[in-house]
């Protein structure tokens, strides 16, 4: 199991981090999140065309860079650190899914667009649809990036159906986390193509969300530690008080453990996807919980300033909690893990 970046991956990370620093400043993030679509199209164009981040998930024969989950995760982590509003994660998951399991005709139709960023993908997992005669009807809730997407992968039982967003009715929702929009999507005898089983795609999404959570949690810790070093009360930096140091240390332990778990999941996604049946829900559970913990503590350790709209703390708390809630109830993930690890009652060892 490899936890550290290869030299090529480290270079990619530096490049994306520099991009995120230039195009994901706090001012830009705020301008975008309150803008009409929740995504800055110039930034998306640059991200896709100049950096080629969307191509990472797509094989070379379909216009991609032929990288994979490990490289996609690096981009997700670096964009996630600054909460850059973009449909990158959604699009990458859809591209990885279609690269893996679609038939060639399918791949040729969608992958080149997903590779160059001209086609945005989104997953509609919380869907209540019936399929009949090559169409689906029903509704999908909480479709992250649904308002931006051209291609939707809609969950129908244990399968995914590919649907053109143009054939659906999309209602934009106002979201608690303004940096990541959602939509309500309605289908009425909408043409749909079978795109393969849902489980591996859900697993990949969870792995990437876990990586994002771990990276964003680390950012929260770094900002908080910096504040503890500079903010002075009683004539000394508040970070010298043990009551606060110990809370920061507990966050560091949580962040290191989330980082390690996310890296283990990413490595497994890249080398042994079957291993994700246990590790994807485990990483999602642990990393989202850690992100919520660190973002919540970030507010407390910043005191009053951390409670203001102006400070970045609330953006991270909202992203963290929204991610955790969209992953479904903690008890659900736990039961899934317990089933995989054979920890449920009534079975023999």
């Amino acid at each position, binding site marked *: 199991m490899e936890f550290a970046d290869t030299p090529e991956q480290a270079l990619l990370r530096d490049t994306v981090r520099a991009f995120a620093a230039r195009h994901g400043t706090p001012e830009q993030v705020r301008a975008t999140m309150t803008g009409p679509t929740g995504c800055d199209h110039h930034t998306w164009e640059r991200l896709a065309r100049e950096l080629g981040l969307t191509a990472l998930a797509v094989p070379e024969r379909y216009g991609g860079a032929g990288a994979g989950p490990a490289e996609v995760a690096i981009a997700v982590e670096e964009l996630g650190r600054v909460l850059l509003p973009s449909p990158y994660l959604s699009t990458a998951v859809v591209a990885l899914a279609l690269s893996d399991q679609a038939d060639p005709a399918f791949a040729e139709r969608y992958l080149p667009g997903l590779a160059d960023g001209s086609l945005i993908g989104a997953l509609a997992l919380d869907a209540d649809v019936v399929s009949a005669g090559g169409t689906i009807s029903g509704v999908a809730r909480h479709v992250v990036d649904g308002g931006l997407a051209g291609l939707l992968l809609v969950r129908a039982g244990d399968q995914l159906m590919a649907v053109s967003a143009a054939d659906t009715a999309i209602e934009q929702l106002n979201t608690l986390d303004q940096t990541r929009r959602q939509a309500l999507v309605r289908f009425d005898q909408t043409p749909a193509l079978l795109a393969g089983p849902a489980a591996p795609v859900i697993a990949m999404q969870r792995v990437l969300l876990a990586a994002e959570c771990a990276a964003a949690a680390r950012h929260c810790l770094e900002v908080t530690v910096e504040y503890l070093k500079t903010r002075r009360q009683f004539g000394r930096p508040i970070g010298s008080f043990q009551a606060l140091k110990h809370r920061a240390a507990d966050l560091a332990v949580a962040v290191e453990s989330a980082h390690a778990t996310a890296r283990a999941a990413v490595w497994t996604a890249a080398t042994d996807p079957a291993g994700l049946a246990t590790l994807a829900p485990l990483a999602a559970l642990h990393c989202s919980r850690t992100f919520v913990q660190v973002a919540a503590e970030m507010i407390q350790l910043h005191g009053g300033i951390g409670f203001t709209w102006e400070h970045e703390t609330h953006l991270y708390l909202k992203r963290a909690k929204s991610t955790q809630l969209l992953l479904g109830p903690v008890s659900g993930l736990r039961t899934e893990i317990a089933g995989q*690890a054979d920890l*449920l009652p009534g079975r*023999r060892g």
Partner: protein
Amino acid sequence: MHAPDEQAPAKQAADKQAPDEQAFRAEVRDWLSANLSGEFAPLVGSGGPGREHEFIEQRMAWERRLGADGWIGIGWPVSAGGRGLPWSHQVIFYEEYARAGAPARVGHMGEQLLGPTLLMFGTAEQRGRFLPGILAGTQLWCQGYSEPGAGSDLAAVATRARLDGGEWHVDGQKVWTSLAQFADWCFVLARTEPAAQRHRGLSYLLVPMRQPGIEVRPIVQLTGTAEFNEVFFDDARAAAGDVVGVPGDGWRVAMGTLAVERGVSTFGQQLGFQREFDAVLVTARSTGALEDPDIAARIAEAWVGLQVMRYTALAALDRPAADVPGAEVSINKLIWGTWHQRLGELAVDVAGAAATVVGAGYDLDNAQRLFLYTKADTIYGGSAEIQRNVIAERLLGLPREAR
């Protein structure tokens, strides 16, 4: 239930291993299965926290068997009598050792603390005199650091030593000294410059245990057993040359060892944790406790915690050695100490009211022992609070508070 092999770190780590690592794993496994038999067969699963009193003579013999076949100091340089193996091989050794249920080591103080200290700070004469006995498993060591007035605040050491007539004369008291009743030698942190304050003026002395000036008294713990001791020094003697490093520089010597510790032994420990977890699960399933959603959730969380612990320890080994030495060990310690304590609570909750009755002579079952003994996990080896200080100051760079 998966067979332990399927979940164990060794199996997963083995999947992507280099051929030499696979060969080494087979070598360790073969040796253990050939040797943990006959007179040593009863030792399987013996010793360790809460059970250090078990089979002590046989475990000392086992230590000599390990030494005779070159399994002590496998990470030490070849020039020092070790095998010069990289940490990846050491991880494999600890994993296989734990998987085989080989007995808890009684020679680890010499192998893991004193030996590396002598390699870093000792003279050629000291290395030549002490390392062979450690490697052979014939010379057992104990650690004389903590004192009644110097626990978390180790620099408050008050045990004194003065050089007189070509010998060190040692007076004072150490406490929480594991295995002192069996040890041949003790490495002692003592104040050799009475006027010096705190970290200054301490020396790292090598003191023979079997002499009139030393008295060892066992400390009975809340488990009813006694692993730890008080050690009283009343004009105990050590040779003038048996000081490691420069006299007065003992603090740096003592801390130096801790800084290079990378937590390799933690992987064997985790297999022990897996075994304890499996036992709790078996009980939960057989008693029906697992039908209780609260118990089921805690079982699942314990399993998740064990995986997270393993990934965190593996990730720490993947980091360059120069990166914040010491902080990884503190992170691992906080994670496993907290996890293990929770497992102890879960173990007795799974047993229910049955856990309120003990055997004759206050004999505890595994769940009761786990529950009680794990209370020490966040105290010994640097309390959880000290670990948090280390993480806050060394990893996060937060300012020290006034001390």
